[in-house]
């Protein structure tokens, strides 16, 4: 076990985790998930928000099993390796709103950092301005870190703090498995659009568990990858990101899913400014919160209650994004999307300035 742990902590460990994501995501797409969306943490949490009725965009409502899979896979890895540590108390309410704005930014682009990488690997060149925006947002976050930005210490917490997000994940899975309906309400499943496209339940869940396990062991994080390069020229995590792109590109080629171009890409729009701007906001929010959406799920699985709050913020943000016409559609940004990005940047910068620790 110790030997395996050392492997996972090594450069080849993180590259392996990235490679597994890069291979499995296009396979999930082949098996039914939406185009260039084999895995997308932001989109899938948005679909879950829809399935729970937190927004009423009829085309994006589905209880994606990958998300509970990520949490539970990380939980299993953390339990096996003695790393399950219930903890909380590092500015959870701030993290909630960082999650809200991270989701709003991601839905202006239409994807989390993982999907940006997968879109690039599928030939969707609109991912290029988005990834530049992500890097720019993270660079702003690094500037705040250098100014002493710090959300404060978390503290050891009782077991219930650590178990509540895994329990929530199990409830979501049960809702999906039994397609629970409560009279008029209950879980809602899209009949058309991306929400109606999904890989078989057990495959999605299994992929979620495997990736959750590997990502917990290797600390795979797209935001951290860029942050560490900017902050301290450390390319360790970046190996995982590079592996996602390379392996997803090769897998897409093999499966006939590589279609290069800007126009007509699945669940995407071609407004470069807002593909860029949405991800500046998302990147800044991830950097201030200390992890990309995937990493927040894995942290939630290993007992980090604050990361769990960020996840709930993202799910809430998806409700705002679709209820208030902030989210983009293939036609372009929503009516109030650009304004929301600017408001979000102002709020996140204010948080960045306010949470500087005086030396």
């Amino acid at each position: 076990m110790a030997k395996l742990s050392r492997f996972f902590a090594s450069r080849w460990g993180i590259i392996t985790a990235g490679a597994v994501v890069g291979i499995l995501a296009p396979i999930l797409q082949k098996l039914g998930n939406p185009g260039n969306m084999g895995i997308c943490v932001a989109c899938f949490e948005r679909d879950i928000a829809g399935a729970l009725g937190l927004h009423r965009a009829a085309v994006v409502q589905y209880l994606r099993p990958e998300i509970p899979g990520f949490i539970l896979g990380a939980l299993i890895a953390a339990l096996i390796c003695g790393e399950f540590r219930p903890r909380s108390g590092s500015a959870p309410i701030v993290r909630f709103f960082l999650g809200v704005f991270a989701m709003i930014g991601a839905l202006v682009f239409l994807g989390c950092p993982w999907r940006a990488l997968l879109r690039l690997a599928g030939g969707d060149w609109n991912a290029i301005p988005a990834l530049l925006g992500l890097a720019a947002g993270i660079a702003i976050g690094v500037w705040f870190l250098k100014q002493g930005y710090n959300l404060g210490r978390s503290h050891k917490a009782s077991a219930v703090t650590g178990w509540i997000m895994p329990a929530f994940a199990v409830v979501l899975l049960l809702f999906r498995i039994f397609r629970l309906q409560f009279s008029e309400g209950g879980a809602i499943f899209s009949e058309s659009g991306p929400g109606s496209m999904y890989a078989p339940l057990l495959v999605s869940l299994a992929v979620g568990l495997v990736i959750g396990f590997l990502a917990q062991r290797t600390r795979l994080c797209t935001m951290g990858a860029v942050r560490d390069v900017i902050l301290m020229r450390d390319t360790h995590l970046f190996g995982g990101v590079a592996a996602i792109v390379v392996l997803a590109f090769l897998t897409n080629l093999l499966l006939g899913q590589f279609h290069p171009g800007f126009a007509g890409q699945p669940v995407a729009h071609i407004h470069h400014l807002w593909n860029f701007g949405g991800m500046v906001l998302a990147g800044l929010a991830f950097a201030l919160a200390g992890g990309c959406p995937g990493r927040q799920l894995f942290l939630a699985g290993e007992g980090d209650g604050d990361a769990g709050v960020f996840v709930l913020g993202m799910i809430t943000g998806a409700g705002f994004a679709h209820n208030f016409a902030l989210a983009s559609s293939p036609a372009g940004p929503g009516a109030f999307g650009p304004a929301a990005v600017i408001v979000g940047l102002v709020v996140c910068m204010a948080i960045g300035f306010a949470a500087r620790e005086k030396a």
Partner: protein
Amino acid sequence: MATTVDARGLSCPQPVIMSRQALEKGGFPIEVLVETVTSRENVRRMAEKAGFKVRVEQMGDEFKLTITE
């Protein structure tokens, strides 16, 4: 004179940033206290990459890293 960096409860990159600042100031050995395995790995990787020696002790469910030249 020995230096202590208390990074318990902080999540990365804070423990790494604080340790790096301590390394720049000098004052060895530098003791870094962290709570998570992730922080332990990150601080160790940073210090070893910069050419320092790192010894890790587990203290209850915390870790003490002793960084020497």
